[in-house]
């Protein structure tokens, strides 16, 4: 498949760009932050995303979605990255919808997917237990109890977990905490007794939660996929999340970059535009190169998800690693090249650096993915 967007995908990009510029410019995030909004995103905007078909972008038509692919979801995420639009799109429409669509029973799909597509259900993946992403280590215990399971343990950095209606929880049903075998995914209603959640407002003004499970009882129907066999499903879902985040990172990095290039053409010192200085020209050219490299890997990762999801793990890691590195560089150079103004809260540039820092950490940072690839390559 050619490594370019099709005409339809480009049209989707244009329409998304127009919609987001109007409905969710950076000022939208700023307003939510300044008002200390309880939800942390706008329910009205999320309903708007559902009306546009975005909440159901990856959901099959029979479940009320529009049945598009990962390239389309990535196009939307890239545009959302450009305006820093806060919404449960990644947690719910990309990660949770994929998890349920891939591993869910007929009943799970019928119950949850139409509500996700309609913008009525927010869902979140609870995976991390420590400050660094390590999906190979799952300690939260799910012991057999009555007709189902009893969950005990903690989760952290659960994106949108503070308001999610439904949680997808990776738990240990057998083996030691580092064993690949013995991980099970559970669908847990957020109102289940024994589940405590603490909202964590992050540096990017978006929200996650720390979850504490104390004798949280679920029925056997709550198992997503098969008991003890959750790791391969988790792997696929994480790849999807990683490629999506990489697309968002390219969007956020590119917007910070574009704003910086514009600033270099406007800002005058020593009687000339500072963009005339070669010390700055070469650095922005290098950032451009890195962003272009990331863009290629992201598109390839998204295309691979649509063609052969099981083979997409390595390229998803390449994309996440490169997009994280390139976007971080773009945002750091953006702050530096905006000088004192780049340090002010008034300018949006700092908001890009904050979001990029969070997105590059989520589901594995640059080091995590480089290490993962090295292991796959046998060194």
């Amino acid at each position, binding site marked *: 498949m050619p490594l*370019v967007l099709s005409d339809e995908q480009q049209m989707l990009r244009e329409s998304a760009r127009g919609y987001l510029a109007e409905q969710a410019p950076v000022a939208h995030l700023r307003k939510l932050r300044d008002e200390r909004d309880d939800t942390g995103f706008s329910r009205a905007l999320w309903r708007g995303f559902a009306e546009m078909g975005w909440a159901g972008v990856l959901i099959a038509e029979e479940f009320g979605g529009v049945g598009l692919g990962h390239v389309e979801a990535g196009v939307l995420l890239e545009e959302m990255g450009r305006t820093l639009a806060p919404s449960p799109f990644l947690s719910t429409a990309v990660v949770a919808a994929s998890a349920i669509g891939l591993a869910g029973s007929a009943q799970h799909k019928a119950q949850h997917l139409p509500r996700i597509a309609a913008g009525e259900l927010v869902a979140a993946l609870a995976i991390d237990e420590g400050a660094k992403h390590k999906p190979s280590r799952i300690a939260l215990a799910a012991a057999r109890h009555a007709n189902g399971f009893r969950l005990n343990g903690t989760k952290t950095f659960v994106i949108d977990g503070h308001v999610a209606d439904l949680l997808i929880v990776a738990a240990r049903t057998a083996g030691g905490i580092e064993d690949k075998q013995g991980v099970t995914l559970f669908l847990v209603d957020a109102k289940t007794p024994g589940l405590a959640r603490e909202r964590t407002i992050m540096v990017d003004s978006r929200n996650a939660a720390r979850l504490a499970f104390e004798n949280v009882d679920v029925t056997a129907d709550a198992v997503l996929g098969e008991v003890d066999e959750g790791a391969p499903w988790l792997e696929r879902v994480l790849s999807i999340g990683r490629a999506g985040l990489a697309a968002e990172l390219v969007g956020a990095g590119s917007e910070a970059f574009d704003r910086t290039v514009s600033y270099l053409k406007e800002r005058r010192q020593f009687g000339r535009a500072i963009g005339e200085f070669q010390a700055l020209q070469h650095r922005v050219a290098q950032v451009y190169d890195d962003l272009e490299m990331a863009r290629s890997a992201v598109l390839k990762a998204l295309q691979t998800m649509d063609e052969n999801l099981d083979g997409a793990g390595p390229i998803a890691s390449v994309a996440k690693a490169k997009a994280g590195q390139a976007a971080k560089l773009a945002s750091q150079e953006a702050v530096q090249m905006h000088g004192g103004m780049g340090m002010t809260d008034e300018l949006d540039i700092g908001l890009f650096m904050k979001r990029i820092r969070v997105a590059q950490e989520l589901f594995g940072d640059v080091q995590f993915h480089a290490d993962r690839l090295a292991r796959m390559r046998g060194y």
Partner: protein
Amino acid sequence: MSDLEQFRGEVRSWLEKNCPPEMRRPSLNEDDVCWGGRKPSFQSDAQRVWLERMGERGWTVPEWPKQYGGGGLTREEAKVLREEMARLHCRAALTSFGIWMLGPALLKYGSEAQKRKYLPEIARGEIRWCQGYSEPNAGSDLASLQTKAEDKADHFLVNGQKIWTSYADRADWIFCLVRTDFAAKKHEGISFLLFDMASPGVSTTPISLISGKSPFCQTFFHDVKVPKGNLVGERNKGWEIAKYLLTHERESIGAFGITQIGRSLGELAAETVGHDDGVLADPLLRAKIAEFEVDGWCFLLSMQRAADMAKAGQGSGAYSSVLKYYGAELNKRRHELMMDGGGSDALEWEGARSHDGKAAREWLRSKANSIEGGTSEIQLNIIAKRLLGLPGA
């Protein structure tokens, strides 16, 4: 079966029948590559036969039109040919500046007579070309070149000096930038001339590099007579051709970074530093190699995306600078890591064990990647000005 799949079947059986077994192994060294020419130095009969057969079909230049000695293949068919050659490990039948550089320029700017004369010779590997661009005082500022071609009614009289002319001592002809108007602005007085290296007044001396012997030469022109018909394009409009050709050169130097990826750096380093609990025992080296591989992967995909963008009409000539810069820097990083991984073994300069210092010589040679074909700094200038629209100094 689609037409393309049928074509694939034909290509496969033709290659199986016609590619000699010796040509299905990687080249041993720089001399084990076929450059063709009037006095070709074939390393083996197999090399000669392989060139003849491929040249006959025009598959040395699969996408050039048939009437100029090419294969007349579509882009998709050429891709199939490359894939099938890779599947059988067939090496390139011909390595040639005529193919990479002059050919594309002649196809775009040459007269019909020039195309009919020069292109088939290139395709069959009968004439070996060299490139006369840089001069001692015209490197990054190439347009300030001073080699002059005076109009003497029935011929041009060429005087001057070129440097970094690769393989000038073995080439049959040169494509050369010369100044035809000294009064005009520097970009507007340059012409693009072709001439025979056997012409009276042409001489060359080789240049030794930090890596040892090199293909580079200094080339001197003293009262060289060149027929008027050897001018490509219009007089004083040679800079446009020069720029076009540099784009092709950049793409091939950029591609250099990836053509040699064989054994992985991780495997190579494992031999010297060993494993510790399943991973390389040197964690800092391991991290650098892993980062390099991420970037290498992205670079390969970007080469593909650039080709696909060009095909979809979304390309930009200046984009070749993105790839040239990144590919050159990447290849230098790769050789630094190979030296890090190789340790003192990689420092041996002579003898059979080190293949006469292959690792060290290639490491040193890679330093030129970010100098030749426009330095990395020049590529960054081009990106800043032409792709990002920053004001010029």
